């Protein structure tokens, strides 16, 4: 499993390097057209890649078999290969998009950091790279989630009780009382999932319209609304990302989960401590599914 993750990351890097190379070679071509040293925008010249990404992702998801969580040698298989791929494609895409988005600024709100056609051309092209990854990751996730029927795992169920659990959880963090018995996903994750889902959908939709505008004449009024929506959503998702990164990677008690995003496995003790509800669920089931070779492989690989 770890090896595969590494391969996935390396593949992403290879894609990035390839695009950067393409961008570099393109700058010579446009200089001849009179634009001062500006690289050709990949949003213009390679928009097809953005359109290809969702279909490629759906196609790939069609060949993906998801695995159910289970206990393997005092560890729990939390993230299967598909989860790891979709998470990191999505994460890499988001980070690249947010970074290049900040560099490009938000009209009338966040001043640009890049100036000059070369610098902002590079920023646009990096944004493009992020877009391809993000679209792929998003659609791959959507395809997988749609087919596996796992959407309900994420959605908030009972907002009131979730809120109480969140309150108890953070009281425990502050040293007051005991951690509540949380499930596979924390109550806070259930509550915030809609923000991520709706935000991602909006940013995808508006982003795709913006890409479409490179080939088609879309009315100014609509584009104004699209851009505004894109910008606001980007700010919301940016803040969400910060919260997600803090809760999921920065605080020490999340590190086992972060590790599992690379290896797929979390220690059983950790699950018992932090996800008591899920632990009960896992231990009450009897399952090795002997036919699942991939799970075995994952277990031995880690």
């Amino acid at each position, binding site marked *: 499993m770890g090896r595969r993750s590494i391969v996935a990351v390396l593949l992403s890097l290879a894609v990035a390097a390839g695009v950067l190379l393409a961008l570099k070679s393109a700058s010579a071509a446009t200089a001849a057209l009179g634009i001062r040293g500006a690289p050709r925008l990949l949003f213009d010249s390679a928009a097809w890649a953005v359109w290809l990404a969702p279909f490629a992702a759906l196609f790939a998801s069609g060949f993906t078999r998801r695995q159910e969580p289970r206990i393997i040698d005092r560890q729990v298989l939390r993230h299967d290969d598909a989860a790891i791929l979709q998470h990191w494609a999505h994460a890499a895409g988001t980070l690249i998009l947010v970074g290049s988005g900040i560099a490009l600024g938000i009209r009338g709100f966040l001043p640009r950091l890049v100036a000059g056609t070369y610098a902002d051309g590079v920023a646009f092209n990096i944004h493009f790279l992020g877009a391809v990854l993000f679209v792929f990751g998003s659609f791959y996730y959507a395809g997988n989630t749609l087919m*596996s029927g796992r959407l309900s795992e994420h959605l908030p169920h009972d907002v009131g009780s979730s809120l109480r659990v969140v309150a108890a959880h953070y009281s425990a963090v502050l040293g007051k009382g005991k951690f509540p018995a949380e499930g596979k996903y924390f109550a806070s994750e259930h509550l915030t999932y809609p923000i991520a889902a709706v935000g991602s959908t909006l940013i995808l939709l508006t982003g795709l319209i913006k890409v479409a505008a490179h080939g088609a004449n879309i009315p100014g009024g609509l584009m104004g609304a699209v851009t505004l929506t894109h910008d606001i959503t980007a700010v919301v998702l940016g803040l969400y990302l910060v919260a997600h990164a803090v809760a999921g990677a920065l605080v020490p008690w999340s590190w086992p989960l972060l590790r599992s995003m690379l290896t797929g496995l979390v220690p059983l003790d950790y699950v018992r401590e932090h996800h008591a509800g899920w632990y009960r669920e896992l231990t009450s089931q009897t399952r090795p599914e002997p036919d699942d070779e991939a799970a075995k492989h994952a277990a031995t690989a880690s």
Partner: protein
Amino acid sequence: MTEETKKKDYTRREFVTGVGGLGLGAVLGGLVGSSFLLPDKVLAIPASQGYLLVDTKKCVGCDSCMLACSLVHHGSTSFSNSRIQIVQNPFVTFPNDIEQNQCRQCPYPACVDACPTGANHVDTAHGNVRTVDPAKCIGCERCVNACPFTPSRALWNSQEKHAQKCDLCAETPYWNEKGGPGGKQACIESCPMKAISFTKEVPVQKDAGYDVNLRKTDGTAELGLPLGDDGKYTKSQVDAARAAAAAMAAASKAAPKH
């Protein structure tokens, strides 16, 4: 998993995979197809149906054009929002003390090409002027930076936070006159010297094609201003002025003092 859910799952899976596969095929096919069918795709940009010409030797630097430009487009006067920039330095000798920097409505507009969103575009509804749709502008300023002239003729509106450029007054909500290539331009209308003029012909694509002599057919000579293309007096102007001065001197010598 029951048989039923499995079946349902397969149906869903087949659908998703099918959509993905078909889409992949369509996009890739389209890509390959278009590269074969349109091997020499040229961006045909229609020429603007109007151009501003200036005469930098005639301009008196009153900046009326700048204030008018900003006023008819934005309802407020401003130097920085003017799409024509009269840059002057009173301490440089004539005729180099004034530049009239107007947009050239380039046949191949770098600003339009540089725009990532189509905001800076060729407006086919208004005589193909190269202009910015502020609603589509994301404020990246690529057009501002892409303009090959200095100061850049595509400019940044720092109040409304978008790029803008000369549209030959096609969109002038604060003016009762009809603008655009088929109408009037506020800079020309407000210029007391008529040191800006309009033409439908594509000018020669050099500085001299846009900075022309507009002094030959109007009252410039009568005002005693130089008529030469280089901004100097013509020989006949100098000769005539000297003859007149000599005649006046002779007359005042002859006349009795009061």
